[in-house]
């Protein structure tokens, strides 16, 4: 897909909306950064490639009163579907430009693959090869080796909802069963092993709340329980107890709502795999309610409904 088609579409849409959110070059060769386009002359700054990792749909609820155009990948489009289910955006105020995507890079994996060397240049080939030039060497990597885990089991390479689709739709070639394979595998560990693992990784948490603020479904915003000072629910101590408390609240608030975009994990400056917890809860929700978040705009999230007798929760049956 040539970026020119995208630019043409954005130019056209810009006549109908206040802002279009896309991607542009970041501070170095491996980073893209969100671009807010409010005038025609900015359209030429747009880029589209495997560095476009951010979930731009996350900005929509905060711009609810404006008319906004947004560029989404397949995974990002689930956020919009979930917003519609929860009434967090006005669909008529949003113009969605969909881009079929066959995977993006994970900065953390890329840096590890080049042994944390400074990267001078990166190019992407259609066959999935990624050429990386560092100060020491030029290396060819396979995109799937440095892609976020979500790309490796991606079921929705083509956006599920859009007004304009640019490029040909892509069908997923990843088996459905693979989506939660890693979670099922992780769950096989003993309770002690799992506790030790989470203690080790959460010890690193600095409570900067990048995970929460990057999360498209964290909508409590300034009223988050983790920070409220009146009442002061969670102590200012930064011990494991407080860190666990915050992350588990985040997880539970996302039960059956997490669209698995992985932004929480990508945003974490301390490399904590926070998305694992949310995906575990999503797996439970799938088994209990046969519900997958962010797929069908007409669905109702299970936590938004109440049935005295839930089909699969036997212990809730009352006399």
């Amino acid at each position, binding site marked *: 897909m040539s970026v020119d088609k995208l630019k043409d579409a954005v130019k056209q849409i810009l006549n109908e909306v206040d802002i279009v959110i896309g991607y542009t070059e*970041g501070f170095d060769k491996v980073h893209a950064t969100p671009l807010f386009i409010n005038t025609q002359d900015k359209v030429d700054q747009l880029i589209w490639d495997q560095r476009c990792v951010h979930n731009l749909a996350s900005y929509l609820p905060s711009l609810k009163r404006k008319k906004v155009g947004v560029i989404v990948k397949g995974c990002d489009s689930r956020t919009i579907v979930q917003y519609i289910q929860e009434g967090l955006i006005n669909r008529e105020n949003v113009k969605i430009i969909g881009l079929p995507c066959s995977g993006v890079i994970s900065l953390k994996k890329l840096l590890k693959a080049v042994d944390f060397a400074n990267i001078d240049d990166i190019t992407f080939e259609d066959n999935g090869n990624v050429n990386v030039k560092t100060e020491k060497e030029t290396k060819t990597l396979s995109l799937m080796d440095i892609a976020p885990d979500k790309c490796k089991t991606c079921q929705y390479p083509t956006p599920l909802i859009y007004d304009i689709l640019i490029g040909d739709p892509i069908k997923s070639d990843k088996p459905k069963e693979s989506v939660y394979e890693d979670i099922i595998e992780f769950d096989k560990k003993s309770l002690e092993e799992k506790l030790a693992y989470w203690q080790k990784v959460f010890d690193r948490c600095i409570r900067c709340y990048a995970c929460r603020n990057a999360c498209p479904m964290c909508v409590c915003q300034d009223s988050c329980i983790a920070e*409220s000072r009146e009442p002061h629910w969670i102590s200012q101590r930064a011990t494991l107890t407080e860190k666990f408390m915050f992350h588990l609240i985040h997880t539970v608030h996302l039960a059956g709502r997490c669209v698995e975009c992985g932004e929480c994990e990508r945003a974490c400056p301390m490399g904590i795999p926070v998305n694992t917890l949310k995906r575990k809860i999503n797996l439970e929700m799938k088994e209990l309610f046969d519900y997958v978040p962010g797929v069908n705009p007409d669905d109702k999230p299970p936590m938004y409904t109440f049935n005295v007798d839930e089909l699969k929760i036997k212990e809730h049956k009352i006399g």
Partner: protein
Amino acid sequence: MTELGFLKKENLVEFLKELATKSVVYVPVADDDVVAFKLFQENSTICLDRPANIPPKTVIFPQYETLLTFTFSKKEEQPDKIDVKIQEKMDFKDTVIFAARPCDAKGFTVYDRVYKDSDIPDPYYVGKREKTVIIGFSCPNVSPGCFCTAVGSTPSDKEGSDILMTEVSGGFVLEPVTEKGKAVIQSKFIEDGSKYLEEAQKKQEDVKNKVKNPFKKAGKPQISQEKFNDDSFWELALSKCLSCGACTFLCPTCYCFNITDENKIWEAERLRSWDACMFPHFTLEASGHNPRPTKFHRFKNRVGHKFLYYPEKYNGVLACCGCGRCIRYCPVSVDISKVVDELSDTNSENKTLTSNGGEA
């Protein structure tokens, strides 16, 4: 002070073990690819080839610390009266921070002006600061987003360090900067390092030349007050900001804190913990009014504090040492150097930068 020392690479762990018999020693440790300063252990995976994700400010200005403890008591004969016993926590140990990057060491000098060399010194900060020896480590390479030379520093800046260590073939050259530092290298593992001086200097120079200057104009970045006051600039430049605290919490010069009394029934603690101007609660007033209601106002303050207000108060010294962490770890790549560059005053000549980030 020119008595150069040399530490062989194979003696590094032994040297640290020796230091650890007298002091609490913090070293940069890599765990799951994340580097942070942790207590030295013999099997620590010390990582020197890239800067820590989080600077060693945690050692002297920890994420949270107990300032005082309260204990409440009641006597049976006087049930309407509660006695309070207050105990301060002023127990500071001899500490060594090993291999702080020069930008991280310099960060402490930004804190010093506020917490140590002010009219009302902060006893908790001063207590720890005075008992800590900082072994700086001249950067072996540049890192994505770093720009120390553009804010008056270098990758081998000695300011803030008690010793400056430079890696050369086979080991490390140790250059004492202060008396405190001189004492630390009185060790059987430290040899005479004078013959390695040239190699160390060459290495320092090579890395210095690789640091990128993100500013279009040479000299000390000078912000135009007019542009700074234009809210529409901030609104557009910061549209992408998520208003999380990653930039502030990872910043070696951010020093804002919160104080809370954390009560149990018969005892309580007064805690000091990191706070961040990027959080809405930071400026939320008791009335419910928030003078910095949006992320634009909050980031404007962050830039203002570092490039306008702090320099105004402290002889033009910038409160930014160019480590680049806020750029590198920002989830959406907000680039403070780009923002400062766009705010640059195009009408006047920039002043010359001095080595402490101040004006000539």
